[in-house]
């Protein structure tokens, strides 16, 4: 504790130690409000809002990603004898036409079947036949005309051919077949019906008509085979429809303009003099869903921050009066010079200044909902425009500002903070341009404007402060 007491310390300690003032009732009312369970819950949420929002954003993102991925995956299960053989996408099947000794066309569908057969399958056909033991099946009847080039292979492509298996007696799932093998067992136990599809189908069935494609690749006249196959190939080489989903990450350096339409010119001038814009930036993580060739919808989470510096000088003027004793002489006509002491009072008009420096920040966490319209597309470029509302989730402020009413500095961490905790709805309009880097990645350029529609300050303050900003977004898009 203190070892060197000063008379001033004692003066103030004795005078103020037990000093008491009348406490205002509204402070108790505010304290009383905080004791309710609802307030405690809300306060807890407010204190941890960043954490909760991060978790929520993560869950939304993961859910969206999961939906996007799973929506493209076919059902692999076979339930009670009914199921679907998943689509085979651009899987090349090589067919060896039979040799003279080998009257059965060897169909190698190993790749397709292996790719789609569950891992737990118990092979039943793997040990059934060797190439020399392969025999014709009804599904793949023998080709009457032997070919000179017995080992010629002809690739074809099968695209998106979902096949539904009904009443299949599949106790052991389809086993991978070796090149040149078609097992009797396989063809006997599977009844295949074609699923409704607009794409070409490849169907393996017992006692069914030979699929059109198989016919096409087993020509009677070997000389015509290449042409037919080419036709078939061109017919079936339909490009895969890309996913309508993509994800975008953008960052922007912002140029911000503050508006206070309802504030007095003097207050606006004082704020303009004291507060300088330091920096402003925005980051957005968005998902894009392509509605059609020209329209797409974009939404996600946006984090914006505006940094300002406050340099405020408060001048306090006061008058200082001091008395001093002066010794001098007067000439007494009777007694002669006489020494006297008199008091001289000096009056000084003085001023003191206090300097307040503060770093202010305004943070917005928003959800933009933007509709994009594509005006022009080329091989690499797509140009358009987007716009829509931005819904604010969180608006936080730190630092100090000049009070709109009392001319003093307000700490924004106190209840005197004139700002709202919710920034309302804003509007965003962007010009959009994207440059395709490859199949999956695009570069994005989006200059645009963000318009503050709602007042950021409470109504009684009479400021009606808003921000408009010019955004220069650049970013990257991943197309699924």
């Amino acid at each position, binding site marked *: *504790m*203190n070892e060197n007491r*000063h*008379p*001033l*310390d004692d*003066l*103030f*300690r004795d*005078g*103020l*130690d*037990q*000093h*008491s*003032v*009348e*406490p*205002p009732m509204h*402070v*108790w009312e*505010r*304290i*009383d409000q*905080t*004791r309710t369970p609802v307030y405690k819950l809300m306060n807890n949420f407010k204190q941890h809002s960043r954490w909760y929002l991060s978790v929520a954003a993560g869950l939304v993102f993961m859910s969206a990603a999961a939906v996007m991925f799973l929506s493209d995956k076919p059902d692999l299960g076979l339930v009670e004898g009914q199921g679907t053989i998943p689509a085979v996408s651009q899987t090349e099947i090589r067919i060896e036409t039979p040799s003279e000794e080998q009257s059965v066309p060897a169909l190698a569908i190993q790749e397709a079947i292996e790719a789609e057969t569950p891992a737990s399958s118990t092979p039943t056909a793997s040990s059934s036949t060797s190439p020399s033991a392969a025999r014709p099946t009804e599904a793949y009847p023998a080709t009457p005309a032997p070919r000179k080039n017995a080992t010629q292979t002809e690739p074809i492509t099968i695209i998106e051919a979902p096949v539904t298996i009904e009443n299949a007696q599949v106790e052991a799932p389809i086993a991978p077949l070796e090149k040149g093998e078609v097992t009797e067992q396989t063809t006997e136990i599977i009844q295949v019906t074609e699923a409704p599809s607009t794409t070409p189908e490849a169907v393996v069935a017992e006692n069914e008509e030979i699929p059109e494609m198989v016919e096409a690749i087993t020509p009677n006249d070997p000389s015509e085979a290449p042409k037919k196959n080419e036709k078939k190939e061109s017919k079936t080489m339909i490009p895969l429809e890309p996913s309508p989903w993509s994800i975008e990450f953008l960052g922007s350096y912002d140029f911000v303009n503050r508006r206070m339409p309802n504030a007095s010119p003097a207050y606006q001038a004082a704020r303009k003099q004291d507060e300088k814009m330091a920096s402003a930036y925005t980051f957005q993580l968005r998902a894009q869903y392509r509605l059609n060739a020209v329209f797409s919808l974009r939404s996600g989470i946006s984090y914006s921050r505006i940094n300002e510096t406050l340099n405020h000088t408060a001048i306090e003027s006061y008058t*200082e*009066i*001091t*008395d001093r004793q002066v010794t001098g002489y007067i000439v007494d006509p009777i007694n002669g010079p006489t020494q006297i002491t008199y008091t001289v009072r000096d009056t*000084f008009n*003085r*001023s*003191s*200044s*206090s*300097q*307040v*420096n*503060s*770093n202010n920040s305004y943070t917005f966490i928003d959800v933009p909902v933007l509709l994009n319209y594509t005006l022009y597309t080329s091989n690499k470029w797509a140009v358009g425009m987007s716009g829509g509302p931005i819904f604010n989730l969180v608006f936080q402020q*730190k*630092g*100090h500002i000049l009070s709109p009413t009392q001319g*003093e*500095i307000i*700490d924004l*961490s*106190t*209840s*005197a903070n004139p700002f709202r905790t919710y920034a309302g709805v804003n509007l965003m309009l962007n010009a959009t341009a994207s440059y395709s880097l490859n199949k999956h990645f695009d570069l994005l350029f989006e200059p645009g404007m963000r318009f503050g529609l709602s007042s950021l300050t409470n109504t009684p303050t009479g400021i009606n402060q808003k921000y408009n900003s010019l955004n220069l977004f650049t970013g990257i898009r991943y197309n699924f």
Partner: protein
Amino acid sequence: MSEEELINGCVREDRASQYALYKTYAGKMLAVCRRYGRTDLEAEDILQEGFIKVFDNVSKFRGNGSFEGWIRRIMVNTALKLYRKSSFKNEVIGIDDGYDIPQEATVLEKISQGELMKMVQGLPEGYGIVFNLYAIEGYSHAEIADNLGVNEGTSRSQLAKARKWLQKKVIESQNIEYERK
């Protein structure tokens, strides 16, 4: 209602006991808060936050020392937390040719509590907090340095400046008194 009953009631979160506790100590504590807050609004914020902490932690009061002292400590710590949280980088004040008064030459007449309070509240923030902590709360320079995150030399220097500033104000006050007489 005795102090013990008040405390027990607050532990049970009894609203009447909490109100009684507030009525008993809020006046003194608001005076404490006003010495640390830059404005009355800020002082009320400190008072509010301080009492919320008191109600939340009253069960932790073990009776070591006075209950009023415990509450006062919470208020001061709340004010210091606000001070640390504040992003004020510096605050300087220009004092024009201040003159020192020898201790033995100081003749102080009775100065009202209101005037003393006004002087303390008028201290620049950095000086004010050090003077309040050292002269009125009885903190040592080491404790002040620890609480404010400064070194002890800074604390001593700020205290000296605060005393000098207050001396000037006291003399002005005395001169005004003389003029009235």
